[in-house]
């Protein structure tokens, strides 16, 4: 296990690369979801305002 983490001496380069990638993958999902939730609540609020007399 520790030799796996050691990455033949390249640990300081391999693991940050993997970490950055996972961060970007997570960010894209969260940012897209946040954009959708926000747009959805705006759209519903606007529709409700228009429906009200």
């Amino acid at each position, binding site marked *: 296990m520790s030799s*796996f983490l050691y*990455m*033949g*001496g*390249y640990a300081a*380069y*391999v693991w*940050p*690369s*993997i970490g*950055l*990638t996972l961060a*970007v*993958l997570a*960010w*894209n*999902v969260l*940012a*897209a*979801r946040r*954009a*959708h939730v*926000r*747009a*959805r609540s*705006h*759209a*519903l609020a*606007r*529709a*409700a305002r*228009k*429906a009200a007399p």
Partner: protein
Amino acid sequence: MTWTWFHKLASPPHAYRIAGRLAPWFGWPAAVLVAAGLYGGLVLAPPDYQQGDGFRIVYVHAPSAWLSMMVYATMAIAAAIGLVWRIKLAHAVAAASAPIGASFTALALATGSIWGKPMWGTWWVWDARLTSELLLLFLYAGVMALRSSIDDRDRADRAAAVLAIVGVVNLPIIHYSVYWWNTLHQGSTITKIGKPSMAGDMLWPLLAMLLGFTLYYAAVLCVRLRAEVLVRERDASWLRTGSLG
């Protein structure tokens, strides 16, 4: 007419619903492929005979670089369709793609830089491959900035589309830069059709990552497209029924 399906698909309420239904069908296979690709690349693949375990950065660097270009091509094609046929949904696809592509361009540059340090002895060189990829990041930024700087949506769509289309010139430059110019960057790994320069147990995790990243883009695009459609269609009657999936 045979084109009715197309107009139906390009209608915002349909696209909104279909994108919502498709997202998990892209997202879950993407998650499985990326997990398998990372396991195969980090654990199962043998170390490279020249680069040792350092070569494993390829499993995240190459898929990011692939997406940076593939997303740009998609964005430009969507922009061209929107420009020529005036399909608003196409502009929405282009707008939804830009931040995704920009994030993977930044990731490709960052992981490339981290890979370059131990292999080349430097974080950065101003050679053709790296410089043209940096230019791609600026193109994404320019397209997004241009879009957000114009209030009128139709004009913003058209302006962003023109810039996106002009920027396509950069894609073949990025791809062929390693052949056209002397560069520190190594040649391509798998695009040599029929004769990839990689052994099978090194290759399949890379292919899994490439496919996984591509499906991941499709999934994120679906979600971002839904948001984009809602913002663009805020005064449309279909939104007033209160039935948003």
